[in-house]
Every structure is written in C-alpha cells, then in structure tokens.
C-alpha cells in the first residue's frame, strides 16, 4: 500500500505543479492585458476587455468534471491521449487559467493608483509601469493567489484522477471506495491535507518575506 500511496502522491504533485505553472503563466498574461485595457487602465479598450471578460466568465462557468469531458478531443490532440496524469494536465490548465487570470487581475487592480500616477508623473512608459510598478507591488498578493490556484488545482486533480488521471484521487476511489479499504482512503485524505498545508504554508511564508 505504501508503494501505491507514494506513486499516487507523485502523480498528484506532477499534475498540480505542471498545471499550476502553465495556468499561472497564461493567467498572468491575460490579467495584464485586462488590467491595461479596463476602463481605469492605462490603455482603455472596451472591446478587448469585454471579450476577455466574457471568455474568462464562460470558461469559469463549466464545472471541472464537465469541462474535462467536453474537451477530450482537444486533450487527445495536445497530449496524444486522454488518459493518465500527463493528459489531465490539459483540462486542468484550461480550467485554472481563467480563474488565475481573474484573481491576478484583482491583485494588479489593488495596486495603489497613486503609485501608478507617480510613475506617469515623471514620464514612465505604460509597459514600464505595468512591469516596474504594478507587478512588483502586487507580487505579495500574486504569490498568495498562486497558492490559491495550486490548491484549487489539487482539488480538480483528484477529480481528474477518479476518471483515469491517476494520483491520490484515483487511489482513494479505487481502493478506498470501491474495495472498502478504509485505511487507504484515510491515508489518501491525510496526504491531500498535508499537500494543502505545504502549499499554503510556502505561499504565506513567501508573502511574509516579500511584504
């Protein structure tokens, strides 16, 4: 059992880490464009903002399990298969990107408008303001939000696991639920709890150091 548990934990960590990296990167790019183009932004553009805003809302309205099934053709195209940990990274990334975009947009919007104005007052360029002022000032809050995204993905990965993605979710359902091995179920849950604690702990620690 310990062997299976270790393998499952490894699969879970793999899925969560890779999909967190991808969704944070693409979510960050989306967030930057949204913050630039929103009505109070440095380059207001109602059309671009409204499109992205709609896209983000649209993707976020899918429950993960449905999204995962709906995009199976895409998953197969990207990963070559629709089963296994690597394949499940595709739906995980697509599900978490709009979420990451939305909360990082929030982090960037919270940056004191006065500091942005100060940068404009001595002639800084818009991109310089975004990457030299808004992103660094929002960084502590972005770090906390990355932890939120990762924990959210951990939850989704258990779901992905249950339908063939492997990982702790898979283990818990297969052994703990279907074969009534309560101890496996309990250890899977404990492992999930531990992973959440570690992610949040690291996030909070980095946040404290940055502030």
């Amino acid at each position, binding site marked *: 059992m310990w062997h299976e548990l270790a393998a499952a934990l490894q699969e879970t960590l793999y899925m969560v880490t890779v999909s967190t990296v991808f969704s944070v990167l693409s979510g960050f790019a989306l967030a930057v464009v949204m913050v630039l183009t929103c009505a109070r932004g440095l380059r207001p553009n109602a059309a671009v903002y409204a499109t992205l805003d709609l896209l983000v809302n649209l993707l976020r309205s899918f429950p993960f399990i449905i999204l995962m099934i709906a995009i199976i053709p895409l998953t197969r195209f990207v990963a070559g298969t629709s089963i296994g940990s690597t394949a499940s990274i595709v739906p995980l990334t697509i599900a978490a990107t709009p979420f990451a975009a939305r909360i990082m947009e929030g982090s960037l919007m919270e940056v*004191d408008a*006065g*500091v942005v*104005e*100060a*940068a*404009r*007052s*001595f*002639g*800084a*360029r818009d991109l*310089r303001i975004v990457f*030299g*002022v808004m992103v*660094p*000032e929002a*960084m*502590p809050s972005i770090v906390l939000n990355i932890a939120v995204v990762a924990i959210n993905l951990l939850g989704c990965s258990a779901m992905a696991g249950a339908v063939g993605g492997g990982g702790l979710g898979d283990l818990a359902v297969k052994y703990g639920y279907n074969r009534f091995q309560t101890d496996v179920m309990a250890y899977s849950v404990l492992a999930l709890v531990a992973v959440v604690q570690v992610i949040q702990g690291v996030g909070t620690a980095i946040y404290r150091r*940055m*502030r």
Partner: protein
Amino acid sequence: MIEADGISKRFGEQEVLRDVSFSVGPGDIFGIVGCSGAGKSTLLRCLNGLEAYDGGSVRVMGREVASMTERELRALRREMGMIFQNFNLMERKNVEENIAWPLEVWKTPRNEIVRRVGDLLDLVGLAEKRTEKIRNLSGGQKQRVGIARALALNPKILLCDEATSALDPKTTLSILELLRDINRRFTVTVLLVTHQMEAVKTACHRVLLLDQGRVTGSGRTEDLFLAPPASLKKLVRDEYAVVPTGINIRLMFPREIARESIITGMARELGIDFSVIGGRLERYRDDILGFLIINVRREDFDRVQRYLGEHRLFWEAPDDVA
C-alpha cells in the same frame, strides 16, 4: 513658465473647470487654493498632461500641452516633478530605491544615479534613512522622500498636490520650509495646490482662488489676505465672526509698526469705548502681519471709520454694514 488661458474640463455632465486663466512666472511659488472639490487637483494635472482639458489652452515653457505627442508629453513630465498628498511611494522599495526610480526609468548611468541619490538624500535630510523601508517612515519623512524623487530629474517645475494636507502642523511647516529652500536654491517654480491657509501664507508669493471650477480671485498673497475678497473669507472663516452688539471692525497691520498706539489714540481722541474681541499675529513667509478685531457701538462707527481712514490703516467690517 506656465500660461493657462480659459481652461475648461468636464467629467460627464459635471463641469470641473470653467474658463480658468492664470500665469506663473519662473521662480514663483504659486498657490492654487480652494475647498475640496473646487477642481484644484484636476487643474494641476492638466498642466503636466495627466488629465486632458476640453477647452482653452495650457502652455508650459512656451508649448501647448494638448498638442503634444505621447513622447513629447513624457519629455515634458521629466521637466515637471510632482508630489502628492498620500506620497505615492513604492512600499516594496526602500528610500534610496524610491528616489532612484525616475532616474532608472530615464536610463541614467549607475554611477550617476548613486551620486544624484546621495545629493538628494542630503538635501531632504534623510541620509541616515537611505536603506529604510517606506512603511517605517513618518509622514513627514515620506513626503521628503517624495520631494527627493520629484527632484531627481532636475525638473524646472514642481507640482505639489495637497502635499502637506496629511501632515501635522509642525511637519507641514518643515516641509514648506524645504520647498521654499528648494525654490530659492535651484530656482524651481513651485505650484502648490492646497486648502490649508497656513500653507499659502507660509510659502506662496501669489495665489489663485478656485471655487467650483471657477477663478474667484488672484493676486499677491499679502494683498489677498489683507483685503480678502468674499471668496477668500468663505475659506478662512475665522473664529471672531461673532457679533454681540455693535459692529466688528477688523484692523490689519501690514508691517510691525506700533499700530496699537493708534488704536488707543483713537479711543482718547474720539472719546469712545470699544472692546477688543480678538487678534492674531501671523507669518506670511518672512513678514509678520497682524490683525485685531474690535467691537464699536453702532453710533460711533462713522467717526471710527473716518479716523481709521485718516491714519491709513487697512480695515474692514466683517459684517455687512452698508
């Protein structure tokens, strides 16, 4: 230095600035005064293009702000430093990093930045705090960092947006003193937006009064405060306006001359009694001016008026006596 001619600006339906005209000469400390919502801060932002104006013209150092390209506008802002009520410093950078920031934006060589930041730290008296985090500073120290940052690019004009409004009276004075010092030593033209009369009196050579986006008065500071127009009185609203009976007369002492003997002389000469209601000495930059409010009986008013006229004292009756 700055010529504004008939600026107007609206936010949607609301007119924020209506036909505002003024001019600021090089080396002036120019006050823009009004209560909150009068349009002062918006006016200030029209000068460096942070806000666009809808009508009229603003010429800074001979060039129309509205017709500038983005690139020209950034070059203009390089010549115009700005400080803010809430300091607007980067919390995650320390003191010297904040001051160096504009220099980095304009790609100043590293050794030049180090030298310039050192000079500025000395100028604002924060040399010992150079690596301190912003959140460990007091309000006055934060504003000093703001001033150093605004001066980093050697601007010709310094725009101050309620720069002392978040500070206590003593710190306010020290910041104003610093601004005057900078104005004198580097002949930087200073525009001071404020609602604090003390700030105006301490620092400004000339003043523009703004009320609901309209100019309601302008002139030299001393002239305005010695014979305040109605719009200024509305702002000052001193505590001596209460009239028991009779008529209050406010006497102004433009220079430190023994005017008091004239007042006591008046009592002897006219054979009248009056009561002293209040008075104060105030600093106007380096001058000390004073006023005294006396209360005379209604029937004596004409004679008092004539006497004060003969002795060429500035005076006014704060209550409406036609």
